[in-house]
């Protein structure tokens, strides 16, 4: 009885320890891949069409999902905001509510979450499959650095696409909120924009939102690349890696958002 309990406990502890060590190992390997990507990213700018191709696949192909979801998010914000604000007789402040919540938080964060689901998974699956079919090894045999040729262009494409997508998300969301608030509900047009313009600061809100989206772009793309690069070369391994990309990217984006916001609000 005692030995069974002891065995179970030690097994549990060993499992936790192994998992912790594995996580830390993955963090270190991810950081190493990040630095290698930065070092070998010369080629992705010298042969810029490589990066442009990836911008097409990560950015342009994500346009539709970003625009449609931004529109609906903006409209929901307009409806919900009006519902609460009109209780206090200040329904004109709806423009401020929609714009600030989109520009500061929802724009960068929701874009990053959608990006992780739409583009991050594609990157992981593609690189994982390249590894499974030994394309990466073949590149190395031909003295082509796979980090310079495959990883770096995708990384820079993600970093370039994310702020553009986030800016589009915020703008389309504001338009969605406008559509609900002004023509549908009947909030004053001028008050909607004037209150918004009076409260949204270009430096404090819009530039900070862009900074956030750049950081999220680095994080999301790097996680997707690492998971693909690190995936076990089996069908199951690639599928697990794809799942992990979404889970880890989402958690990282939400945690980073808190950290960045706390920096931006105090400074």
């Amino acid at each position, binding site marked *: 009885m005692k030995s069974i309990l002891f065995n179970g406990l030690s097994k549990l502890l060993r499992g936790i320890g192994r998992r912790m060590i594995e996580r830390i190992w993955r963090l270190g390997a991810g950081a190493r891949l990040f630095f290698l990507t930065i070092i070998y990213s010369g080629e992705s700018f010298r042969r810029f*069409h490589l990066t*442009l*191709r990836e*911008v*097409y696949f990560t*950015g*342009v192909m994500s*346009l539709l999902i970003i625009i449609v979801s931004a529109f609906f998010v903006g409209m929901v914000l307009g409806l919900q905001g009006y519902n609460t604000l009109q209780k*206090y*007789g*200040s329904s*004109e*402040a709806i423009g401020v509510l929609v*714009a600030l919540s989109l*520009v500061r938080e929802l724009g960068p964060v929701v874009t990053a979450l959608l990006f992780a689901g739409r583009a991050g998974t594609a990157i992981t699956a593609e690189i994982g499959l390249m590894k499974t079919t030994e394309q990466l090894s073949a590149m190395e045999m031909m003295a082509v650095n796979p980090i310079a040729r495959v990883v770096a262009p995708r990384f820079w494409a993600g970093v370039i*696409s994310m*702020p*553009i*997508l986030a*800016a*589009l998300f*915020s*703008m*389309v969301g*504001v338009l969605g909120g406008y559509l609900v608030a002004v023509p549908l509900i009947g909030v*004053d*047009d*001028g*008050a909607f*924009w*004037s*209150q*918004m*313009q*009076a409260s*949204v*600061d*270009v430096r404090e*809100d*819009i530039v900070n939102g*862009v900074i956030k989206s750049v950081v999220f772009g680095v994080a999301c793309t790097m996680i997707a690349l690492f998971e693909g690069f690190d995936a076990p070369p089996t069908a199951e391994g690639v599928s697990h890696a794809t799942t992990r990309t979404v889970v880890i990217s989402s958690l990282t984006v939400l945690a980073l958002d808190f950290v960045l916001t706390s920096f931006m609000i105090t400074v």
Partner: protein
Amino acid sequence: MDRTTIDLWVGVFVALGVAALLGLAMKVGNLTSNKIGDTYSVSAAFENIGGLKPNAPVKSAGVVVGRVADIKFDPKAYEAVVTIKIDKRFEFPKDTFANIYTAGLLGEQYLGLEAGGEDDVLKNGDKITQTQDAVVLEKMISQFLYNKASETDPKTDAGGAKSDAKASGEKSGEPKSTELGDAPF
């Protein structure tokens, strides 16, 4: 897909992104004048404009007839000079009254025009002389408290004196009564 098509689409994508950023900066973040047809501008001086902002509505009888175009501080008279643009279709008498109101308890502030009775109408560049400042809540509360205090002060004084007398009477109840009792006899 060939390279030129990809370049074209990426170009469209980047252009969209730049347009969105510009839109955010200009339309959401900064001031852009939005026009309501042909207007004429009139100025009015206020001692306190409260939270009135440029582009706020100008209403008469609750209907929007114009917009606040500009707010400046006059360093000589220490007043705020508010320039408003009124729709050309609406003419107001020279003795029109300009008030700053608040929409709701916490709402935004707007400028209200109350038409006077004169025959001459306001023209471009004219000045509205009769104005009323924005109501500052703190001022109102302190005034209310002051009035309340001055109202109740004499009463409380009287009450205090009475209670003092009472207390002293109670305290020195015995000797007083003896005194009183002594006096007539």
